[in-house]
């Protein structure tokens, strides 16, 4: 009788041990899944916040933004850019190697966002970088533009010029 009792006790102990082990493993996996789910939820919330921010801070009638692009330009490395709007420095930016690569691969950077009143305005972009031989290149591009009661988007476009060994710099308006 004693032997049977001790056998049952032993079996129960083994079962409890196995159960606790599997529970521990399940908890570990569960926590990882919880973290992943949290990440997805935070991303969705950020999307809602992004929408709200756009609508509230930059209404369609006054919104103004400047983008930077440098698609397929392999003879120029942008290092910094400075924006001057209506005789006032509004922003500047220093680029990391990853960001330069992102621009090369077709990414567009939203460099500046603001509200702008209707009328005539002037945008000046000062771009610094290095050419293929590592020499410092500095370019200034200027654009006079009109703003109506609708959003206005400008793009500082650095474009590959197959005829020259230098890229072209321009400010273009988005239609």
């Amino acid at each position: 009788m004693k032997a049977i009792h001790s056998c049952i006790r032993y079996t129960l102990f083994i079962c409890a041990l196995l159960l606790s082990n599997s529970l521990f493993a399940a908890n570990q996996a569960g926590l990882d899944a919880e973290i992943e789910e949290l990440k997805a939820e935070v991303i969705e919330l950020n999307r809602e916040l992004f929408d709200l921010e756009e609508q509230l801070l930059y209404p369609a009638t006054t919104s103004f933004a400047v983008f930077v692009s440098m698609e397929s330009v392999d003879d120029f490395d942008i290092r910094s850019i400075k924006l001057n709007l209506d005789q006032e420095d509004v922003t500047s930016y220093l680029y990391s190697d990853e960001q330069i690569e992102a621009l090369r691969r077709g990414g567009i950077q939203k460099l500046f966002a603001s509200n702008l009143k209707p009328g005539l305005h002037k945008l000046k972009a000062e771009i610094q970088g290095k050419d293929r031989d590592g020499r410092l290149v500095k370019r200034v591009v200027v654009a006079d533009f009109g703003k109506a009661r609708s959003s206005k988007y400008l793009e500082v476009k650095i474009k590959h010029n197959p005829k020259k060994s230098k890229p072209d710099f321009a400010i273009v308006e988005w239609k």
Partner: protein
Amino acid sequence: MRGLLLLLIMSSAANAADLLPDQPRTAKQDAIYGQAMYSLHSGDYATALTLNNKLRHRGQRGYGKVLDIHEATAQLGLGMSQSAKKQFHKLISDKRLSFIPTEARSQAWFYLAKHFYNKGMWSTALKAIRKIKAAQIGPSVKDEYHFLALTLELFKGNQKKADQHILAINPKSKWAAYGFLNLAVSYTERDVHISKVEAVFDKALLLSENTSNPKALADRIHLMAGKFFFATGRGRSAIKHLKSVGLESAYTPKALLTYGWALTEQWLYHDALQPWYMLKTNHSPLNQDVQETLIGIPFLLEKLNAKVMALGAFDYAVEQYDGIYEKLGHSASRLNTGAFIEPLLAQQIPDRWGAFAPIDLSLPDHPDQVYLKDVMSKGYFQGELKNLRDLHVMRSQLTKAVDDLDAFTLTAQERKKEYTKITSEKHLTKRKKHLQELKSRYKKLLARINKAFKNPDGSGLASDFEKEQLSRFENVDNQLAKLKKSELFKDKNYQKRLKRVQGVLAWELSERYTARKKQVSKNLALLESRIKTTNKQLAAAEFAYKVAPKAFSGFENKNNRLKAKYKNQLAKLEKVYNKQRERVGSIVKTDIKKRQERVMNYQLQARLAAARLFDETSNKKRQMASDQISIGELRQ
């Protein structure tokens, strides 16, 4: 196998964006898509996912499966392995996706396999790597692909396939050295002839010259080879390799310890003391190799028959172990509360998170710096720390978002105030009234002018005197008409007089009339311009009234709703954060406990050895004393 894992972790620096086939920017000027691509390629995966979600929310607009690829890549970058795995699997195995070139597909499989290998999901990694056709893989990753495939096949024990891969690696590539090292490690775990293992280690050493840090890899290979030969009882071969490990390397403590043991096994006790003294002097007693040396040195002294010195050294070791145990106890009491976690998280780069953002493990001002560095260098611990860091970043993002929403609420309230102020000023009503007055004046004036110009007698513009003149002019006109019918008409003088009177009247009237007409036109133009200006002012006021100040409406509810969501999320995150913090803390707690147990074990051995030696030396003294006594007795 752990060696293989560590080796690959050391050599891999994959970027999630590398998984992408090159997707050129669309011809369309789509700000959101362009920004999503920029964020994705520059490693800001959270923003990339947010923007990708926005694109989906807006409707796909012809982007189709590209958004799925971007999403999977960003998920991978953000450490959401399970979601990314499902998405990638669905995408890459779908043969209908003709826009992904075969090379890009192979490359994607490769990086996916590499990622899962680094995460420790080896079987999944092997499945992914077997999808690749060697001929289709790009030259830039070809050698690395063969290396990864070799490692995974070795893990599964498929020697033949592993051999095929190792032969395909270019010998000048760094992956050849890593490949041969992994092969050697695999041989050490299986029953392979020692000469073959040695040959593979030698080959790996030879090829280590092609790596970026040949010295470090050579030290590592020497240590691994030395440990293997020592474990298999080939002391001389072990000594040869261990002697070659540099004295300033990360592998020095382990090499010195094993070198000492290898010399001991060769009965070179005196020589073995040198590396152990060196290890003890140059490294912290918290180092586990040093702890082993503390008990190893008196053991050697005993073997050298310096028993009194050995006894002293054992006593010294017992004291040292007490100190180490106490230090570990202090560390445990400090680290049990997880007090190192917050300073560690605080020194990370803000907003950098995800699987590819490394953790800064240095804790320069922490009292347990040496111990923590040792524990945190372990791969699994870093994975847990990354999760905790991600939660920490998310928490700060959520808190910032709640603050932003408060600021948005303030903005909306300010706009509402502005709007109320504008409406209470009755600004618009005043303008409207003024415009109505002007318009009525204009209308009256216009009516008068019309009357004056349209009426042939021009009486509308005439004064009383002019009206009298006009009536006289009319009389004269009537008289002239009568004269034409009567006999008097023939009287030419009278006729001339009448005409002269008529002329004078007309002349006087026209002079004044022209001046007045000019004045009236001028006044009219002035009034017209004022009406135009007031009209514009009215339109502007109406616009301001209608558009700008009302930009608050509808935002209050949206703000509040989103804020409630964020607060809920923050509360949820806090729970998960505490769980993860506990998990990280428990790793340290368990590790400290194990170390303390080990120290206790060493101390017990040292105490027992000291007692034994004490006994032996005392017996010897007693024996010597009794021998001396018996010699004395004999002499007497």
